[in-house]
């Protein structure tokens, strides 16, 4: 499978606090790669380095074969159209309505006319199972609704890769299932590549194709779920066992089908 994102010997520190030392990681087209690891270890930092919201100290981050650090102007704009991010708290703009939030990237990336933008807003809201809420403000939405509107905003410009930062944290089980279903549906129906940062192991077991374990300032394990379960790596086993998956394979398949219809 084609590699769309590659971290090569990446170093990152905030002052004396070293986050990454020799981070190597590949993300392949069309897969869901889940990154797990303890809180405060820098999982979100990795996502932000990927779209250059944060700079790296050494090494290289390649996206679609190009060095992210050298991108400027149009190239950087194009990168942020191809790679979208769903932030942990959804990061909806409080001063804008739902429609204006979703239209925001469409305007910035020069997507069609106003009428086409409105049509796209309605389309993506429908995709996330929330039609007709265009006029609401973020303050009128629940946590789960915010995440889904955030996801609608992320997919509005049809990105090839979506970065999910703790997509299910703080949500009730129903909304967790909805978000997991959406991740699977985007993968299966649109071929979207996903990088999911989480420590929700149920969610991880539900959506993952490959799993990366952040430990000791680098990706200490990268492999499939079966490989992860079989790995002789106590820290990884402890992490996995701590959030033992409770969903059967049938549950996972059904979630993909149900998607947003709940």
């Amino acid at each position, binding site marked *: 499978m084609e590699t769309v994102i590659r971290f090569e010997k990446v170093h990152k520190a905030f002052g004396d606090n070293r986050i990454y030392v020799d981070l190597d990681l590949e993300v392949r087209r069309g897969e869901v790669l889940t990154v797990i690891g303890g809180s405060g270890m820098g999982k979100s930092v990795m996502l*932000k380095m990927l*779209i250059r*919201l944060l700079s790296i100290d050494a090494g290289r981050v390649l996206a679609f074969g190009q060095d992210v650090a050298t991108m400027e102007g149009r190239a950087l*704009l194009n990168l*942020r*159209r191809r790679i*979208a*991010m769903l*932030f*942990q*708290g959804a*990061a*909806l*703009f*409080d001063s804008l309505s739902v429609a204006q939030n979703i239209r*925001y*990237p469409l305007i*910035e*990336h020069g997507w069609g006319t106003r009428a086409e933008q409105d049509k796209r807003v309605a389309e993506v809201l429908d995709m996330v199972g929330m039609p007709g809420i265009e006029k609401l403000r973020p303050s009128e939405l629940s946590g789960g609704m915010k995440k889904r509107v955030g996801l609608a*905003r992320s997919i509005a*410009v049809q990105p090839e890769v979506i970065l999910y930062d703790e997509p299910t944290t703080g949500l009730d089980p129903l909304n967790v299932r909805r978000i997991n279903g959406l991740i699977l549906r985007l993968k299966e129906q649109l071929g979207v590549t996903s990088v999911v940062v989480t420590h929700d192991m149920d969610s991880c077991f539900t959506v993952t194709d490959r799993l990366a374990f952040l430990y000791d300032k680098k990706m200490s394990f990268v492999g499939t779920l079966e490989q992860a379960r079989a790995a002789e790596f106590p820290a990884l086993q402890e992490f996995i066992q701590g959030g033992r998956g409770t969903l059967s394979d049938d549950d996972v398949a059904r979630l993909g089908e149900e998607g947003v219809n709940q």
Partner: protein
Amino acid sequence: MNKALGLLSHVGGVATLTIRTFRQMVRVEAALLVEQMDHAGIGSWSIAVLTALFTGAVMAIQFAVGLEPYGASLYTGKLVSLAMFRELGPTLTAVLVGGRVGAGFTAEIGSMNVTEQVDAISALGADPVQKLVVPRVLACVIMLPLLTILADFVGCFGGMLITMQEVGITPRFFVEQVIDTIEIPDLFHGLAKSVFFGYFIAIIGCYVGLNTRGGTEGVGRSTTNTVVAISITVLVSNFMLTKLFLAI
């Protein structure tokens, strides 16, 4: 030593933000600019008017009483107008409006920062400096001189009301004194200063907001820091700008 280094770091940060702001200035979005002009300018007129009215009135009382033993109470209008146009109009307006507007900028941008909305602007293909900083800086640079003119005239009006009552002069006499006293350079100095003050208010408010960390507690801390930083910057720069303009 650490505090000095920290201060230097902030000065460097503000300078860098200034350069980025000026680079983006030609691409300012009209709707955002109008919104900020309304917030910073129209929303602040009452503070500017109240402050100037009572400051002019208090000065008039003090001058009228203080000059009476020398038989010079009739010159109260000259002193009040000169003080308002040259110093008090621009400086008081900047300190008070700066506290309101600058703190508002920091609270709003700081809240956006800690909830990752500033990152989201970048991630969605826009530039936070262009969206957040440029309209605010331009709005303050445009609106503060207008508020200052308003404050100058309202301050003189307040002085006139008190002088009429305390000294017994006519409004016409007071206005003639003001016209005789105030020259174009006096007006220009005050307005030129207010342009700089407007820039300081906006750039400090935005810079502190963009560097806010630590959740809601951090937003509160940043907002307080902004009010202090703006007040000190306005007062210190007022001295330097006064020296500069008098030397020109």
